[in-house]
Every structure is written in C-alpha cells, then in structure tokens.
C-alpha cells in the first residue's frame, strides 16, 4: 500500500539534550495511528517537527513520496499536515468561519466573501457532525469545540495527515466519544491520523496501529490487534533506573502534614495522604490529573470545599498562603519563569525576596545581609553565575531552578512542596538538584514532589502516590513501586 508519510532516522538536539535519536514513523491511508511514550520520550519534538516548528538535524521525512520541507505551521498545512494541539490556538475575537479560513479568507476580487466563508465552514462543521454556528466568535468555546474548528481548518486545506496531541486530556467522556466519531469518519474518508494519548484504554479502542517511543527513538511499531496494554507499558518503560538518583537514607520522623478527604469541584476529589519528616513523597500521574491543583489547595492558593489539612498538629486555614509560609511550608511551582522567579531581577534580590524581613532593619533592606545569605546559598547549591547582581534570566534553566530552591530553602521550611523539580533541565544539573533534595531530607525536611518523569518519581520517593482524573488511585512504598504498576495506575490500564 502507498505510504502517506514516512519518517526515517529522525534526530534532533537542543543544547545539551538529545530529544530525538532515531525516530521512525510510517503512516498509511485510512489508519489511526497511536504514538505513545513517556514524558520526555520525544513525541512532542516529533510532532513539532511535523508542524514545521523544528528542523531535524538528521533523518528524512517523505510525504506522498516527496520530501517534506519544514517551513512553519503554514508551510506544513499547505503540504497537507495539520497538527492539532491539546489546547487549540484560535482567535477569540474572530468568528468561527474566519478562524477556519484565517490568513487565506475567501474573497471576491479584493474583498472578503463573508457569506461563502460562513457557508463553507457550516458545511465542514456539518460533515464533522458538530453543527457549530460559523458566525459566532470563538471566545468561550469549549476545548472540544475548539478542536472541531481546528479539524475543520485541516479539512478545508484537505490535509491528508492529521496529528492530534493528547486531544482528550481536557475532554469529558461524551466529548471524547464525539471526537472519536469524527476521527473514525475522517479515517473512512482516507486520511491518516496520528493520535497521541496517555490513556491506553482509549488507544486500544480507537487506533489501528501503535508506535512506541522511548528516549528519542522508536522502539516498536505494531498493529493494535497484536498487542495488549501490558506489552505497551513494557515497551514504554523498558529501561533500568539509572544511578542518576543518589537517594540517601533518611530517618523518617513524625507525621508533619496530614491531608484528609479534601475535594475541589471539578478538579480533585477525596484526597487523603500524609508526609513525614525526612520523607520524600512523590505524586505521579498524567498532566491534567489534578496533582498541581491539590498542592495549590494545600498551600492555600486555591480553595477546597471539603476535608481538612493539618500541619504540625495545627489545622490549616484555607486560602492563606502567607500563613502557610510562616508555618514552615515552601512551594516551588512548576513554571519557574512565570511563577517562581522575577526574571529581570538580580540573583540576590530573587533569593532574598522570601526573607526580606530577616534582611531589613527599620524597614530598609540591608544590602550586605542580602548578599551574604545569597552567597552562602549559591555556594551550597553550586550555582554557576558571573555575578550575583546578574538578572536571573541570564542563567540556564537548571541554575534558575537552583535559585528558586535557594529562595525557598533559605526560609528554613519544615515541608517543601515541589512541582516538577527538574523539568527542562539538563542531565547534570538534574542530578545535582536530586542530590540536594535528598540531602535536605536527611536533615529532616519533608518533601512532597510532583513529577511526570517516572524515573525521577521512582528514584527519589520513599512513597509514591498516583493520581488519575482528580482521584488518588494508588499508593506504593518505594520497594513495591515499579514502572509497570505506576504507569498502569496513572493511565487506567486494566491490570
């Protein structure tokens, strides 16, 4: 059968990170092809290459026997590849019709042909079985409907390859079913679809073939009929836990944090767990499973409707992050550029911001004291910098993360909550961050760590909690937890 798309030996490097090593993917017409892999396996890089965002360092991509040229999203669309992201990028103030035809509006002579555009979009929506009103604006449209608009756009360009990156992550069960219906009818019409998902049950129900990636390389491709979830999970994991995780033995002490049955409408339900002094508790789960929302509620950023949080024997008030800080909880957020740092400000100022009271006298900051504390911490953390007065946006990702850690640890917390401690950090700095966390745990710090990187969760945690769709679905001690049972719990594969 004629191949629609063939990727051979794709390789791509970003700075110190080899994102793709040897990725291969072949698509045939009339198929829905699942692309699976852990976080960091290289799926996103591969998708962005197809979207024309990245250019490969090596390897080839052929589309209908012709070479594919990476030339921006527009270029990819014109060659017949449409990539639809989990959260589509529509123009909220423009009508759906104009969103479908943006940048290439139908015209009579020079002027836009509004009526034809509305009619054609309406026809596309109808063909997809979702009768959206083409003259409404995109603002306020549900994510499911936004995806439909993106698919309509792909159809209007007669895309032959439609790639969907975790399309169901933010969809309800009904919306997911509707999307699958659309996907199947596109398959009937001859398109090739790539479906990225972490939900193995969905993959088994929808897809015809599956390709699995690990560490930037394709490890297997097989018809769905010949595999089961066990086999897929084995392929996805298939690696030894490296000694990158220098977990030290810490003395586990008293319970410091006790979370009892907390719920927040639409985000998480009935969450209970404990963290002890000196213990590292990892929370695994897919993106969107509600992990970040839980820790935000514990720290007091968001409200929760039911349940209680007790810290050091004291029941914590809701919505009081300041109080939580004073009581000895530190939160290192996931997105350090947006939430963790003041990017254009110096290393010193960033480090000392959490303890301005300690370094000021009569309400004025004392420079010497600020600098002293920062110097001490930067040494402890082996921070690489030119001058402590440099702004933090000049540091590498790993070093920025160290500044965030210094900022919080210098407040001498009893509990550190950390969301994705090493996202986007090179391998060397990663292990430094791990060593540092482990070392602080031996001194009695309790650590609650969210991580989407399985080796990290398994390598660092004394206990592993797994969340799925807003619920705590599994709980393993370090010696019971293994990649298979954690992935199975997180993705809801029947075991």
């Amino acid at each position, binding site marked *: 059968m004629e191949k629609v798309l063939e990727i051979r030996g794709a390789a791509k490097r970003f700075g110190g990170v080899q994102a793709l090593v040897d990725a291969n993917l072949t698509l045939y017409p009339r198929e829905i092809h699942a692309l699976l892999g852990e976080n960091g396996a290289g799926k*996103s890089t591969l998708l962005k290459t197809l979207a024309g965002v990245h250019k490969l360092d090596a390897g080839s991509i052929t589309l209908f026997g012709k070479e594919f040229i990476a030339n921006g999203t527009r270029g990819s669309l014109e060659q017949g590849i449409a990539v639809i992201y*989990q959260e589509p*990028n529509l*123009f*909220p103030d423009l009508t759906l019709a104009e969103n479908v035809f943006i*940048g290439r509006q139908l015209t009579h002579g020079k*002027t*836009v042909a509004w009526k034809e555009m509305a009619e054609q979009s309406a026809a596309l929506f109808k063909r997809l079985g979702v009768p959206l009103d083409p003259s409404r604006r995109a603002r306020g449209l549900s994510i499911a409907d936004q995806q439909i608009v993106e698919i309509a756009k792909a159809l209007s360009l007669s895309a032959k390859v439609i790639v969907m*990156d975790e399309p169901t992550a933010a969809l309800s069960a009904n919306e997911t079913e509707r999307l699958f219906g659309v996907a199947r009818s596109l398959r009937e019409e001859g398109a090739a679809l790539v479906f990225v998902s972490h939900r193995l049950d969905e993959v088994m129900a929808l897809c015809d073939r599956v390709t699995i990636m690990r560490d930037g390389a394709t490890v297997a491709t097989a018809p769905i009929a010949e595999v089961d979830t066990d086999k897929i999970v084995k392929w996805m994991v298939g690696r030894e836990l490296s000694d990158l995780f220098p977990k030290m033995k810490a003395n586990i002490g008293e319970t410091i944090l006790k979370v009892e049955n907390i719920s927040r409408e639409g985000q998480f339900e009935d969450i209970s767990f404990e963290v002890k002094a000196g213990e590292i508790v990892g929370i695994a789960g897919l993106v969107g499973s509600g992990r970040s929302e839980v820790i935000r509620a514990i720290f007091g950023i968001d409200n929760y409707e039911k349940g209680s949080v007790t810290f050091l024997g004291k029941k914590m008030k809701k919505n009081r992050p300041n109080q939580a800080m004073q009581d000895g909880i530190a939160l290192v957020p996931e997105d350090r550029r947006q939430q963790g740092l003041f990017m254009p400000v110096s290393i010193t100022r960033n480090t000392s911001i959490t303890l301005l009271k300690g370094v000021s006298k009569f309400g004025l900051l004392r420079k010497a004291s600020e600098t002293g504390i920062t110097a001490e911490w930067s040494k402890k953390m082996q921070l690489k910098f030119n001058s402590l007065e440099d702004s933090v946006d000049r540091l590498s990702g790993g070093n920025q993360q160290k500044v965030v850690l210094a900022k919080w640890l210098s407040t001498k917390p009893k509990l550190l909550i950390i969301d994705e401690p090493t996202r986007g950090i090179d391998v060397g700095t990663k292990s430094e961050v791990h060593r540092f966390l482990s070392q602080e745990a031996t001194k009695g710090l309790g650590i609650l760590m969210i991580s989407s990187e399985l080796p990290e969760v398994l390598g660092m945690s004394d206990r592993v909690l797994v969340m799925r769709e807003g619920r705590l679905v599994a709980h393993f001690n370090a010696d019971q937890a293994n990649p298979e049972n954690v992935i199975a719990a997180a993705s809801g594969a029947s075991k």
Partner: protein
Amino acid sequence: MRNLLRIRELPIAVVLVAFFSIAALGNHQLFSFSGLHDLLFGSSIICLLVSAETLIIVMKHIDLSIGSTIGFASYIIGKNASNGHGLLYCLLLGIIFGLAVGAVNGLLVAYFKLPSLVVTLGTLYLVRGLFNQVAGGDFINSDKVPHVLSFMASHTFAKIPYLFIVAFVLALIVGFYMRNFRSGRDLYAIGSNLPAAYLAGIKVEKRTFWAFTAAGGIAGLGGALLIARFGQAQANSGLGIELGVVAACVVGGVAIAGGIGTVFGAIIGALLLQTIVLALGALGVSQFWQGVVNGALLIAAISLDKVLSSRSQRTQIMRVSE
C-alpha cells in the same frame, strides 16, 4: 434580529441617542439643527483621528503621537500656504510628514519590538519639541488659512459640516478596509492572539508597520482639518488631543485589549463624549465636572469590556503536556 443584537456598537449608539434626547429636553437649543451642527463640527477632529487610532488599538497597540503629529502638520500646511504655495502642495507636505512620523513609530514597534506605548510617548514629545523649535512664537492666523479650508469650516452640505463629512468619509474607507480586506482582517487577528497570528502565517511585522504609517498619514491629513476648524495654527495646536481620541475609541467599543472594535463605533464614542461636553455646558455645569463625567464614562466603558471579555479560568490550569 439576532445579528443586530450581536452588534457591539448598538448599546453605545442607544446611549448616545438617549443622552442626546434627555439633554435636548432640558435644553431646546441643543435639539435643533444648530445643536446638531455644534455636535458634528465640534467632534470632527476627533472623528477623523479615531480612524487612525482604531487601526492601532485593534492590534493591541496604542499611538499617542497623533496629537503632536496633527498639530505640527497643521502648522506645516498653514506656513506653506502663507508662503504662497498651493493647497494641494501644502496638503501633500502635511500627509508626507505624518507618514514619516508613523513610519518611525512603525519601524520601532514592528521591527525593533519596542512597546508602542513608550515609542509613541517618545515621538509625542519629540515631535512636539521639534514643533516648538520650528514654530517658536509664530502664529498662523485665519487670513493665512487657505480659502478652501476656511470655506469648509464655515459651510455645510445638507446641514452637515464639511469637516465632519471629510472625517466620516475617511471612517467609511478605513472601516471598509478593516472589515473586508484580508490585510485589514490581519490587524484583528494580530490583536486577538499574537502567537496564533504568527502560526497562521500572517505577516505581523509588515502589517504593524503599515498600520502605524497609515495612522501617521491620517494625522497628517488631519492637520488640514485642524487649521480649518480653529482658523489658526501655533505651537500648542492639537496639544493633548490624543487622549480624547483614545477615550472615544474605548467608549465606542474598541477594546484596548485588542482584536475587537470598529471605526464606526469609535465615531459614536466621539459623538457621545462631545454630546456630554455640550449638554453639560448648556446646562451650566462647570468644565471640571465635565471632566469628571467623561472620566467616569471611560472607566465604565472599560469595566464593561472587562466583564465581557473575562475568560474562563478552568482552561488555564490545563497545559499542553511536555
């Protein structure tokens, strides 16, 4: 009917008519051809400039330099006319000057990626400073104003002042362009979602540059209306007018957050603000209170905008993975 309700300018137009009627009931002078004439004549300069500002604000930018540009252009036109040059020549000079200022703004904003607020604040001072240097205490008085311009300022067509007709025709042209040309639609796309505009292959820099240049050109053309309207030009002509223009746009439904609004709406906004000035004046309210009412209206307009455009929080917590 459903489409009529969707028109963003409708509520503000209703407010305008209601306000004008109420004010006219209190003061019969207002509700007459002469009252209407005062309204259209008095707001003609702002009505012209909103065409320029709307081009910019829908892209989520702002142009504060138009007040200085229109002032200097009016002086350039008046000075050259009084030196004996023909009207067309003078007009062309004014427009070229405006295009040049706009091109500088456009270059810095589009290609050097500098924030438009700061860039155009800079050119506001820069152009005004140059203007003061060049004009000094020079005063172009009404007998130097080209005859055609003073005729337009003092005559009407079907009871409508010529100056307003010029502004309105320009608004029709700019409004039609923004609604019906691909490049005009691009301005909305840029203001609505900039990253998506890049992804859709829209030539963001080119559009931004030309929109600023065109806005400058409109302000340059406006110089002719300014000198006609006041019958004079001197170093503080057009001083501070840009803020009235921005206020008219916002009141008229041009969202400061970009992506929404029409020139037509901005003109209604300008007329509403002018109605308030006239009505309060006619009712004997002091100038200071007029400022308070205009300010309150501006804040009310932007608050309404905020309510209308508040986005759902839920979608923000989900994030594209990896």
